[in-house]
């Protein structure tokens, strides 16, 4: 699979690159875009494709493995772990949004915005573009 299709990074973000990579994979697995047994590009491939320090990629892969997202196989590419047979149910997937939405909710409260207005902004964002890069 083309590395660029699995991973991309945002520079200038307060979120470290290793965490961006882990979260992208988590979302792809949760949505069923990646399923059990599917191969993940190597540290080398990702580092080269994104022009990112290999240690950063390696750290992200270590966390993915620790979290049970991927499995390491001796001498072979890593694959999506066996338990991820299909997409998580919607209820589980929506929970992945909780941290981002909690943060947005806290900021909305600090700004003393009426909930309706915040929700309509979120709705507009959802309809405008499926996925941010």
């Amino acid at each position: 699979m083309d590395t660029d299709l699995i991973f991309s990074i945002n520079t200038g973000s307060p979120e470290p690159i290793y965490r961006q990579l882990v979260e992208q994979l988590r979302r792809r697995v949760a949505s069923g875009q990646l399923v059990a047994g599917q191969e993940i590009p190597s540290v080398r491939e990702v580092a080269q494709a994104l022009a990112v320090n290999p240690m950063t990629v390696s750290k992200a892969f270590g966390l993915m493995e620790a979290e049970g997202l991927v499995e390491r196989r001796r001498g072979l590419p890593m694959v999506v772990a066996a338990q991820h047979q299909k997409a998580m149910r919607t209820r589980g997937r929506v929970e992945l949004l909780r941290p981002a939405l909690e943060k947005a909710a806290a900021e909305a409260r600090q700004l003393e915005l009426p909930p309706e207005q915040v929700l309509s902004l979120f709705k507009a964002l959802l309809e405008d573009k499926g996925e941010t890069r």
Partner: protein
Amino acid sequence: MNQTLTIGQAPAFVDDAAGAVPVRASGLRVDFKGQPGVLAGLDWTLAPGQVVGLLGRNGAGKTTLLETLLGLREPQGGEVRLFGQPALMPDDALRARLGYVPQHSALFEDFEAGDLLRYFRSFYPRWNDTKVDGLMSRWDIPRERRVGQLSQGQQQRLSIIRALAHEPDLLLLDEPVASLDPAGRRDFLRELVDQVLDRGTTVLFSTHILSDLERVAFNIAFLSRGRIALHASQDALLDEIRLLSGPIGRLQAAVDTHGGQVLSRRDLGEQPRWLVRFASGRLPESDAALRCEALNLEDLFLEMTQ
């Protein structure tokens, strides 16, 4: 901050005796006429295989530091050892392990690009012709053209090729991409990544283009007031450092309860702001009175150097 603050992936202690430490600087002092303390007792160590981005404001002395580390400039005090040897008296074997891309490439303008590379080739026991040929064609540098007639970007790329050709173990780059367009920069970064992957090269580079540094540098060092004020892994910087703002009482309470280390504080005005490191990984929560903000590298840099 007078001492170097090391966070996260701190340079591990490595024994110097075997010559394993690529760079060890101790007590470096460089004074310019009318500008004392450009380097003011700077201590620093780079561990093998580290890729370090050097940050500092304009005039902080980054170029002076790189030149002094390479032994191109004699410090008024202190010493630099490269792989255990004094940087000021490198033998051929040490010289062959070093690569340098200066800010302004000082290549012989009357040479044809191809001849220039052949000339440098004669100084080095090792020279990767395949890499050189590949980069020359990929980076579109005509071998027959005189160096002086190449564009700024081409000269810079040629300077990079010249520094990579002998496969150095330690590579120092001073604003290496200033004249490259975004595509050229990305290609250069890939080349650096390859070096690190294939050879475990230790790399130190200064740049003002933070997005490049974010990608390639695992560690970041801040040069400020003639010293390395901070040397840390980027991940630790972003994960552990927060900008707190709010009433002083609240700031102090947040620091105390979460075991924070205050890196800088500005207590003037209505809204005091403290830059705090929480090494425990437990971070205070924002509320109506206290703001706890994660910073990107650029904002962190601005806060650190103010």
